[in-house]
């Protein structure tokens, strides 16, 4: 597949085949559309990237996960030719982003974290402008814009000035703009931050469709359920370093033990002391003392032992749950349990991380 096109990238648009002027790295591993090696980047005193490695095989989605300031956006900016790295190497479609940025730009679509739109143009004008500047021609750009406006349910607002759009509408328009030229490699930097659940679902559907078409996607997110739902592979970065690189499933399995959640009928001062001998690690208390959470070894009969112990201590129990770890449990374990100021209570409610994060934000 690759050799047929001068050893070019695995996904090549038929309408714009690579030319002899295209610079392709012969050492490119077959199928890797994005490659990052020992990447470093400093902004002033902040070491944004401290030696990051990862690769994204063609046609797959890599979820880049990390707290605010972990270096996700910096990695995306280097890969999309917006920022120059200090050390290491990065390539997209086999093309070095530092040496041949202009070539790289012909393969990529980017939806950046801050909506990169023209506030004084209408939604449609924004898309057509991006299409024209991508070199797809005016008429095809118009047709594609209409198609994308419909897909992202912006048809009604298409001819209104972006200045009057809501945050969610801008976000969707930004994602639409990144798809104008049907790029084989797509970078989505927190594409669903600030979107309502329905809009997030729409973006997720669009991403799944692109994956089915063979597009390679790098998606950064703070929503662990988003990575869980979409990613073939997850790279967790923290303070500019990769702390995990695995499939969502393996990451979850690698996490030690299961998680215990107990809901008491009423808060009890003795509850923690009663539960501690049966769990591994510290017990987190939330909901005014009614909810207890802790890491546990999933031994048979654990839930029964917990209920019996609490019953002996005279503490009434409403609910006991022992469940396998979710990605966010893994995430908190890997990044030392901190997420800036975003999650003041730690992993309080694990089973719907996205909602928990949204709740805190709101």
């Amino acid at each position: 597949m690759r050799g047929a096109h001068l050893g070019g990238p695995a996904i090549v648009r038929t309408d714009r085949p690579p030319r002899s002027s295209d610079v392709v790295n012969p050492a490119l591993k077959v199928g890797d559309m994005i490659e990052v090696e020992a990447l470093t980047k400093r902004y002033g005193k902040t070491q944004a990237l401290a030696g990051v490695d990862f690769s994204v095989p063609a046609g797959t989605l890599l979820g880049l996960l990390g707290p605010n300031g972990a270096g996700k956006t910096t990695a995306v900016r280097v890969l999309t030719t917006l920022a120059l790295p200090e050390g290491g190497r990065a390539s997209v479609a086999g093309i070095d982003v530092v040496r041949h940025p202009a070539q790289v730009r012909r393969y990529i679509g980017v939806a950046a974290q801050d909506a990169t739109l023209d506030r004084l143009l209408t939604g449609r004008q924004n898309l057509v402008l991006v299409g024209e500047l991508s070199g797809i021609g005016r008429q095809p750009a118009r047709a594609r814009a209409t198609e994308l406006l419909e897909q992202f349910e912006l048809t009604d607002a298409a001819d209104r000035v972006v200045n009057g759009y809501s945050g969610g509408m801008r976000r969707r328009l930004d994602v639409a703009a990144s798809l104008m030229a049907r790029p084989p490699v797509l970078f989505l930097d927190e594409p669903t931050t600030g979107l309502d659940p329905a809009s997030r679902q729409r973006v997720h559907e669009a991403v799944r469709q692109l994956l089915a078409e063979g597009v390679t996607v790098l998606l950064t997110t703070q929503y662990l359920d988003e990575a869980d739902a979409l990613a073939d592979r997850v790279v967790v970065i923290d303070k500019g370093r990769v702390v995990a690189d695995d499939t969502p499933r393996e990451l979850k399995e690698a996490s030690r033990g299961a998680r215990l959640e107990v809901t008491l009928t009423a808060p009890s001062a003795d509850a923690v002391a009663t539960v501690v001998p049966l769990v591994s690690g510290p017990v987190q208390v939330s909901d005014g003392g009614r909810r207890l959470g802790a890491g546990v070894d999933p031994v048979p009969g654990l839930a029964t032992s917990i209920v019996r112990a609490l019953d002996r201590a005279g503490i009434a129990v409403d609910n006991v749950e022992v469940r396998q770890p979710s990605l966010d449990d893994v995430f908190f374990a890997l990044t030392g349990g901190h997420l800036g100021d975003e999650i003041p209570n730690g992993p309080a409610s694990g089973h719907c991380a996205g909602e928990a994060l949204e709740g805190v934000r709101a």
Partner: protein
Amino acid sequence: MTAATASSPAAAAPSREGGTGIARRLHDVWAMTRRNLVHISREPTQLSDVTVQPMLFTALFVYIFGGGIPIPGGTYKDYVLAGLLALNLVTSTMGTGVGVSTDLHEGIIDRFRTLPMWRASVLVGRSLADLATFCLCALIVGLTGLVVGWRPDAGLGPVASGFVLVLFFAYSLTWIAICVGLNSKSPESAASTGFIVLFPLAFISNAMIPTQHMPGWLRVVADWNPVSAVAAGTRHLWGNPNPSAAIDVWPMQHPVLAAVAWSAFILAVAAPFAAWLFRRRTTE
């Protein structure tokens, strides 16, 4: 091949030609020019620079100073119109600097930087859209002039050439304004820098008043000021009174040539410098 190419048949798939050919560059410039023209149409109050201001200036200068300033061989209104045209266009270039600085602070610039487009089209497109507003300004100055009694004494060709001479000079100045905008931390500082540069440039010249009445050193500066050459050249082409022709300084003896040379020189220096500044400003 992969599903991606299979699902976008060549007929429907947009072509994405490379970004270096001259046709592609013109195409990008045209797209950016249209974008900036849409901006202007969205905020028409910004156009007051080139619509209300020229009318106001023309009426004020002609009626307030008109009687008090004797012009050898003609009337003040015939003398001052070329100067007013130069003054209005020179000060209008401030808007270009502000616009460039504003662009740099908008998220859209990051979008442009990830597209396979000709980078400089961001700047060229702006300069051309502003040139369109300059043409509007020139038209309004001319019409207002005719209303207050200005009359050129030359054929249609030379009169049109006079307008082109000033517009060419203003276009070259937009590139200095672009450099100012690229060097400014904010649109506000671009505006104040522009003010400091442009007002002396416009007024220490023969645009409003013959330089013969200025103190010695200021007169030397004024006679060599490109704005003086432009105003004198335009007066010459329009067949209006041009007292500067009596001054024995090369630019005043050959005002049309001097104006063209100044404009070409400014353009040749400022445009590459602007491109260099833009690259530096957008590198991180």
